[in-house]
């Protein structure tokens, strides 16, 4: 009787195993994700916040199924080090802001058999990166949201021209060419072309390091310039406070890139709404975490580009905003941030 019992139970067990294998559905995926976020440059806080908020909306709850390692790094050398740390920690995705951060992350993953996906939330001109073949189909492990910071350099110059049609000389601090900042170099080229079209003399001021920003800001004010423009240049952004201070002191219009930079005291800026860009980056990261291949995901353009004006700065430097330009302003900041 016991043998029959064991035999019959064995048959039942086999049947259940076969049934489970054939018909049972796998349990829902309860994966834990880790994302390394590498930020270089000021003004990306809203973007990072937008990114994590959108990820939460998409079902990635920090502490439950996702963990973030957010690193704000200004030193270019430290960018690569941090990226290497992310790779060593085997993160599922690296999210970066700024072209140098994207470059560092790409170099850290280069040579990997299965390279860690990289999603940039801000990159001046993605096509400058060798890893990216085209906007439609990047082809490698890098994709993200372009910032148009380089492209919009021309528009910033045009804004200065609109503010003051008689503007003749515009200063442009930029990362020294030898540093190899692709976006910064591209911004300079675009600025040159635009300046030529607009009939403006572009005066370039190379910046060697972050500490150099203060000195460069001082040198600018010693020159006879009518305005200051910045390009897609994260090193200069990191030292923006110096330029803001000098611009206000010398009553020079300063055209920048982001809302945050205008809030810091720059007169006017045109660039993506970083909170929206951060959300766009999250949508891209979601696709990748759901199994998508970065190389197949087209690079996104910021959904929202905003024209921001600091009314307080305008008053301080005594500039009147033309009505036609005022109509285009999306956001007016009333006071400079402390």
């Amino acid at each position, binding site marked *: 009787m016991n043998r029959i019992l064991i035999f019959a139970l064995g048959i039942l067990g086999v049947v259940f195993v076969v049934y489970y294998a054939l018909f049972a559905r796998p349990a829902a995926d309860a994966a834990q994700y880790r994302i390394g976020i590498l930020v270089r440059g000021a003004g990306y806080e809203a973007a990072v916040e937008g990114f994590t908020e959108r990820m939460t909306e998409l079902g990635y709850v920090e502490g439950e199924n996702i963990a973030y390692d957010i690193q704000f790094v200004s030193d270019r050398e430290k960018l690569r080090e941090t990226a290497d740390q992310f790779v060593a920690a085997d993160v599922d995705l690296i999210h970066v802001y700024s072209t140098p951060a994207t470059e560092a992350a790409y170099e850290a993953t280069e040579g990997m058999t299965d390279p860690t996906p990289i999603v940039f939330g801000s990159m001046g001109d993605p096509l400058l990166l060798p890893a990216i073949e085209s906007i439609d189909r990047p082809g490698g492990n890098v994709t993200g949201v*372009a910032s148009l910071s380089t492209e919009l350099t021309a528009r910033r110059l045009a804004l200065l021209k609109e503010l003051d049609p008689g503007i003749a000389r515009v200063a442009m601090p930029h990362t020294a060419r030898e540093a190899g900042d692709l976006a910064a170099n591209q911004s300079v080229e675009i600025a040159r072309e635009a300046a030529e079209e607009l009939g403006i003399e572009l005066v370039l001021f190379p910046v060697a390091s972050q500490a150099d920003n203060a000195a460069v800001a001082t040198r600018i004010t010693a020159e006879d310039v009518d305005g200051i423009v910045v390009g897609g240049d994260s090193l200069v952004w990191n030292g923006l406070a110096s330029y803001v201070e000098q611009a206000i002191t010398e009553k020079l219009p300063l055209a920048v890139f982001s809302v945050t930079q205008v809030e810091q005291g720059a007169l006017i800026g045109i660039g993506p709404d970083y909170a929206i860009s951060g959300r766009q980056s999250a949508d891209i990261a979601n696709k990748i975490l759901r199994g998508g291949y970065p190389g197949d995901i087209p690079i996104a353009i910021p959904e929202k580009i905003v024209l921001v004006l600091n009314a307080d700065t305008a008053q301080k430097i005594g500039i009147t905003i033309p009505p036609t330009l005022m109509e285009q302003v999306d956001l007016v900041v009333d006071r400079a941030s402390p």
Partner: protein
Amino acid sequence: MQPSVPTFFLRRRTIFVTAFFLAWLVILELVWVLPALERIKSAASELSLQMAENARANVGFALEGAFRSVEDAALDIALEPERADKVLTRLVERNPAFVNGALVDRNGTELARAGAARDGAASREYAKMSTVYLALAGTPNFGEVYATPDGTPNALLTVPVKADGAVERVLVVEVSLESLGAIVQSLTGGRWNIYVTDGRGVVIITSDGFIEPFVGGETVLARPVVQRVLVDGQVADGLAADDAYVDGRGKRVFAVGVPIPLTTWGLFVERDEREAFAERTVVALLAGMIFLLGLLALAVALWSYWRLSVLNERLREILAENEQAAKLLVARDLELNEKNARLQELDEMKSDFVSVAAHQLRTPITGIRWSFYTLLDGSAGILSPDQEKIVRDGMQVTVNAIELINDLLNVARVEEGRFGYQMEKRSLAPLVESAVQQAAARAREKGITLTADIAPEVPEATFDREKMAIVIDNLLENAIKYTPPGGRVTMSLAGEGARVRFSVSDTGIGIPKAELRKVFTKFFRADNAMLFQTTGTGLGLYMVKNIIEKHGGEVMLESEERKGTTVTFTLPAAP
């Protein structure tokens, strides 16, 4: 003890058997039900996907047409920039869905324009449009969908104008999506609901024409089926468990979705889940019925099993009793065998005694008879009539005694198996005739009519003449002895098929019915025979039966008191 129903079902074996067959019932049900349900779902998915593909093809065709027209115009402008105005005007005029078009440079400056101006809107801020920058990067695209003041959904189609491989200008065309709404509505039937979302999951076109507000419009991106299409870029076939959802009207729907080419949009087809899977109800009902039937069969099986158990139990009890009885029987058989052996021994001793006693008595009694015979024949002198009577009486007594002794000796020889038979094949007729002749005188003396009816053709039989003579003589003697004067004794001999039949019938005193069963036993004499005051040993019929059975024949007796007796025996005819 027979198991009661509750006890039976609490037995481990019963629980196991029940659980085992229940499990098989469930498994067998699942083996066909689950695939059947899957097939129903697959069929519904296929149907909905066909609908979605059809809708997508129609919508895609319209979009592609618009896209090609603008692309062609961009090519024309690239080749002949000075004719940009005319190209634009022609483009807008030839395409009813095109509201207006503009040629824009990298700085966002409008270089040429055609078509109706946007109602109440200032010129576009191309420098802030992502669609422009995307086109400047070389990617033609449909921009964000927005609602015009009259509620029509429009979108900007932006196409790069490539000259010498570089993109310095783009064509921005405002396209009315009203025609797409008409397409979707025309495809929608009563069962289906079709809607189109943009890349953010905001519904822009529905099958009933209702269009969500786009600014701050509610997104349906939370629906897994929408995510599969918009985020993963895949076709959602509705077969995933979370592809069904509750729609805005509170109805649970089954949905499939397909991405729309040239855009980041998705097209979704909804159908009432109950209607889509109506056949599942049939399958479920069928499965339920089969399960109930299975349960019924199981119940019947269990009841039969219980009955068998009860019978089994009873059988075991009976077998135990039988075993006990068998043991008892064996014991009694042994006892009986012992007693039988003992009786046989006693019987043999008795037969020996009778044989010896009879033998020892016959000689002196024979001597006494000869003495009486000598006295009767006058050798010892003349007897007076009284003396003669006494001597004759004495003689008769000795003759009777000798007869009894002879019979006893014959019986003893029969029982000891010393009654030798010399079988010969012959006819019984002469023997019967001889017996009739010998008995005739006795019959006449008693005033009895004796007749013999011998058939002309009597088959021969194989018999011992001496022994058969004893039989016939005994039967004839009994008939005459127990028939009163004036009666009749009839003998008959005939062939009867493969047998020879002999009978003696008389009209004598008969034998009482209650004693008929003992007529062939030793020393039997019927009560009325005793009253008839005739002599006899009671051994005659015992001898007759024994002798006839030794010849392979059988003997029968019929009798009725005061009417007569018929004794019949048959012998197998000789081959």
